[in-house]
């Protein structure tokens, strides 16, 4: 185009005068100085969005992220001078110690006995070692307060161990039942779920078997009868005679 050529030659001589014409290929700042051909070209090239952007001015994305000046960080804080300072005010910054109970903390998650036992398996060894220690201590102190204390400690440890064993057995039982159910369901039978009372009966049956094996059935049953008798006696009406 003759216009563009002339402008290219004349630019060198007209350094001071503002250049209103531009070279072909420059991005125009304004649609006002674009010919119709150029507008059509822009539309076809960039699509309607680009055209709208040029028409509307700078795109909003360029405007929104304002560069955060580093110097603003060092400026003094400006506050209102009319706000009364409250009576309970912070003169020296003190951070309050937040007390956390992991038992009731959401961060600890839900208690799942199986996972708990699995992850804290290593504690069993430590408990066994401690039991050995207590037994050794017991050998040293055969009488007196120390002896009693150690006895109680040992008893407690043993009971805890037994309780853990029981828990484990129950878990295993539950797991076995679950697997049975799953196998049956897979085979094609309808899945069935036991009631809580039925589960308790099953557990009781297992316990009977165990007791019979270890021959403690009689003592267990007699103790149970005695306890139940005592409880029943409480419910009877009081007799003055």
């Amino acid at each position, binding site marked *: 185009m003759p216009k563009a050529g*002339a402008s290219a*030659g*004349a630019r060198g*001589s007209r350094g001071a005068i503002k250049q209103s014409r531009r070279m072909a290929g420059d991005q125009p700042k304004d649609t006002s100085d674009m010919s119709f051909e150029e507008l059509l070209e822009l539309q076809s090239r960039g699509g309607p969005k680009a055209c709208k952007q040029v028409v509307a001015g700078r795109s909003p994305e360029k405007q929104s992220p304002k560069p955060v000046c580093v*110097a603003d960080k*060092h*400026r*003094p*804080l*400006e*506050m*209102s*001078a*009319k*706000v*009364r*300072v409250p009576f309970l*005010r*912070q*003169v020296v910054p003190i951070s309050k110690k937040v007390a956390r109970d992991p038992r009731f903390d959401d961060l600890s998650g839900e208690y799942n006995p199986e996972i708990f036992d699995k992850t804290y398996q290593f504690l069993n060894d430590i408990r066994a070692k401690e039991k050995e220690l207590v037994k050794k201590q017991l050998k040293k102190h055969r009488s007196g307060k120390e002896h009693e204390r150690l006895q109680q400690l040992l008893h407690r440890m043993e009971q805890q161990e037994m309780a853990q064993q029981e828990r484990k057995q129950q878990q295993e039982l539950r797991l076995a039942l679950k697997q049975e159910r799953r196998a049956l369901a897979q085979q094609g039978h309808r899945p069935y779920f036991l009631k809580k009372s039925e589960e308790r009966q099953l557990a009781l049956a297992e316990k009977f078997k165990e007791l019979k094996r270890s021959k403690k059935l009689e003592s267990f049953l007699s103790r149970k009868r005695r306890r139940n008798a005592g409880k029943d006696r409480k419910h009877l009406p009081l007799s003055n005679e």
Partner: protein
Amino acid sequence: MVDSARDRGKSKGGGKMNEEISSDSESESLAPRKTEEEEEEELEETAQEKKLRLAKLYLEQLRQQEEEKAEARAFEEDQVAGRLKEDVLEQRGRLQKSVAKEIQAPAPTDIRVLRGHQLSITCLVVTPDDLAIFSAAKDCTIIKWSVESGRKLHVIPRAKKGTQGQPPGHSSHILCMAISSDGKYLASGDRSKLILIWEAQSCQHLYTFTGHRDAVSGLAFRRGTHQLYSTSHDRSVKVWNVAENSYVETLFGHQDAVAALDALSRECCVTAGGRDGTVRVWKIPEESQLVFYGHQGSIDCIHLINEEHMVSGADDGSVALWGLSKKRPLALQREAHGLHGEPGLEQPFWVSSVAALLNTDLVATGSHNARVRLWQCGEGFRQLDPLFDIPLVGFINSLKFSSAGDFLVAGVGQEHRLGRWWRIKEARNSVCIIPLRRLPAPPVAGS
């Protein structure tokens, strides 16, 4: 060809050739004309002609620049312009005359000691004409001294507590004083929550301002006006108009008792927050405050150097220079007056007073280590370098420079102005006038 070049030069200026053409057709005729000329240039201009034209352009530009420079120089040398420039710089807080280097250490015999108070001096002010000094002490009296003769011009005695119908006066420790920049009013504040206004010339009592809820700890007049700023241990800053005997407003923000206050000609005041740990600049027309942090101990004293910078001292021995654009100090000098105490249990000397010569780089600090230390502020107030010490025994409870910078006045006491933690028996409760002599300026080489 040369003629065409000249013609083009004239048409660029848009000058005489276009005068006869009507205004309507001017724009239309210019545009096609320019294209024609461009085409002509393309075809006819040779390299030499182009060089010639460019050289002429360059010479023209040089000539214009030289003319502008000459104009600027002429303006600078003008006296009025110089003065105006100074005023603008002063307003913006950038005027700084470096006088610190010229100050000579005074001989101990040159220091004049004015004795008259019975208890420790707590505060003092110098009248703007440098002729008199007002000093107040723990004995609740105010004494007006003459600088030249050293005699007492007037004594405002202590008033007895409670009973009415007496000559007005203070009945508790006077913690602060201020004098207006025209030397008319003197204001004094004490521990019984009162601000008393006196006429400076005759020491007549004029007004009493009540309103504070605790001891008044800082007072300052705004330069050029009769507006008084006061602060107190009740954590508020109050604005009063002394000429009209009225209260204007209260500003809040400090978290603990305020220790000191200072103001210059802007409608701003600056307070030292004590245990609060903050220095606050109060912009009164905008009802806002700027908060600065930086000291570790309790900030006890503050003084404005110019409109934009201030110096403060704390009870951990540190002295800090502040600028309004940075929340932390520009310069911090720890243990400015050294350490004292048993080995292993050393504590820094508390900085009990600071003073600065207006619009210069000279700062003075006082403590109770038997010397007043003078400092020079470095470039842009980013440095604080000690100059020399002036030996003066006792608690330096107040320091003030004279307006001309000829002398420094120190209020000395046996006890700290706020309490009785220590007592220096060797000290004398007095006002000391320390002359600051300047080295004669070296002769300009080549004159």
